[in-house]
């Protein structure tokens, strides 16, 4: 059988590539649920034998699930470092899961909209992901999948505390719902920091595109719930949705205000970014992401009409280190990556015209 990674890489990353003109600010929606097997030590405290048993149990249950047809199954130890990094860049697995393969496995649906990490911090971390702002649809998808495997696997559950997780910060619903937002207008207007502080006061967390420490690279950030106990899933989702709607409004206002009061500053930023991407021969990951963000703003606002939005979206992923190396077919040094990245971006933008 062909390596599943080789098949996956042919997929367009649908949560990003498919997002259309209406999704210009909210790029994608993701919901993950943490579950553990009943009466079984959590992965951190479990023996290899227990870990292997959990992999088997989850695999069998998902094979029977009607919500998941012909998925890819990957044993994490069989994959190379590069392949695991690719999965991370596609947001199918967490960073921790990609660097510490210990009796762990991954199940991914054909279109990558649903995936299950087995033996991450919890036995089961399942996620559904979709382009645009679609919290209730994504919840429906993961909710049904969870119910379909709970028939086969008894979960660790307590009447008062709900689903029991290795880290008490996830106990209860075990749910983390997050929306990725593209906020270049607010960034140009220097309003991102105060906004983030405001969001934090509402009990929601803000993170960069690839999680912790990635700042708001490419003016992308993820907003998610922090509390998992004391509210139902839908209550949490509604609360998040309300805040997201407000942020989208802020971003829209910032964009129209920029167009009104500092049109040249806006056009200059977009034009320079486009030029940089189109004519560079060496470009770092950070420079590429930030320029792609401005180019996307230009396309969203109709300033740049010759570039297809899907190409821009695709480049956000393809410009990442692991994807570049897969594209080049061999491991690359940082300097080599910056050259290949520039080549790839120039080519894609040329094709697009």
């Amino acid at each position, binding site marked *: 059988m062909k390596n599943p990674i080789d098949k996956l890489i042919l997929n367009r990353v649908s949560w990003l590539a498919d997002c259309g003109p209406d999704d210009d600010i909210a790029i994608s929606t993701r919901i993950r649920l943490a579950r553990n097997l009943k009466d079984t030590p959590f992965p951190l405290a479990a023996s290899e034998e227990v870990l292997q048993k959990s992999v088997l149990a989850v695999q069998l249950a998902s094979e029977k699930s009607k919500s998941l047809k012909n998925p890819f199954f990957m044993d994490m130890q069989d994959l190379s470092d590069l392949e695991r990094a690719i999965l991370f860049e596609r947001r199918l697995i967490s960073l921790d899961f990609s660097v510490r393969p210990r009796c762990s496995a991954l199940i991914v649906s054909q279109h990558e909209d649903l995936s299950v990490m087995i033996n991450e911090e919890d036995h089961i971390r399942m996620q559904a992901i979709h382009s645009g702002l679609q919290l209730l649809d994504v919840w429906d998808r993961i909710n049904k999948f969870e119910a379909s495997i709970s028939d086969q696997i008894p979960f660790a559950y307590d009447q008062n505390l709900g689903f029991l997780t290795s880290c008490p910060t996830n106990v209860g619903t075990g749910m983390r719902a997050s929306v990725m937002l593209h906020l270049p207008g607010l960034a140009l207007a220097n309003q991102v920091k105060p906004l983030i502080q405001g969001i934090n006061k509402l009990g929601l967390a803000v*993170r*960069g595109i690839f999680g912790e420490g990635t700042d708001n690279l490419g003016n992308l950030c993820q907003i998610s719930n922090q509390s998992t*106990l004391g509210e139902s899933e839908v209550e949490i989702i509604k609360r998040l949705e309300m805040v997201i709607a407000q942020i989208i409004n802020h971003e829209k206002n910032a964009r129209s205000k920029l167009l009104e009061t500092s049109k040249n500053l806006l056009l200059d930023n977009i034009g320079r970014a486009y030029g940089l991407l189109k004519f560079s021969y060496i470009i770092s990951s950070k420079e590429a992401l930030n320029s792609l963000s401005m180019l996307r703003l230009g396309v969203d606002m109709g300033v740049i009409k010759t570039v297809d939005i899907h190409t821009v979206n695709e480049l956000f992923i393809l410009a990442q280190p692991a994807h570049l190396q897969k594209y080049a077919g061999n491991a690359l040094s940082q300097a080599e990556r910056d050259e290949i990245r520039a080549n790839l971006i120039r080519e894609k933008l040329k094709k697009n015209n």
Partner: protein
Amino acid sequence: MICDICNINEATIHVQELKNGKKKTLNICPHCASEHSLAEKEINGFNLAEILYNISSQMIKNGEEGEGGPAILNPDFVSDDVAHLKCSCGWDTVKFRETGRLGCPECYKTFAILLRDALKSMHKGTFHMGKQPGTIVDTNGQIATKILSLQKELEVSVQKEDYEKAAELRDLINSLRSENTTKAATRKTKKITTQKTKKKNG
């Protein structure tokens, strides 16, 4: 104040420590505290998992005045009997404080004393209001809330050995549940009946 680790989130955990006359401070957000407690044992000389659990207890101890003001890390806080808790899975207080993680589902009972206050400060509430195993939809969470309050009543009446009332409540809960699904209900009914027989035999 911004978190010292991610430089994005608002820092809500503030720690100050006096060592040899030198003051060390750390301001972090709860998110970084929990993320980093597993990956790195110490940040700037502070044990994050320890902070996450100790500080919250400390806050409650001071009559919940801790919010906003700096809480002082107090290593002597955990009393002797709490320091030597051990779960059947092998996890103990030391491991829990090192990692911020629990070892198995049973640990939630074993470390309940340590967890109670921490959970209060981490979450919106202390009771699960979400879905139950085997259920599919509870569109607005109302049913779950109702079931929950009934469950509390049920527990009380079982303790009082008022089985007539308990049976009534059980039927009510079951009928509410069956609005969602039938599976969860049958499972719980079995549990209640076994509890009942146990009590009678005892």
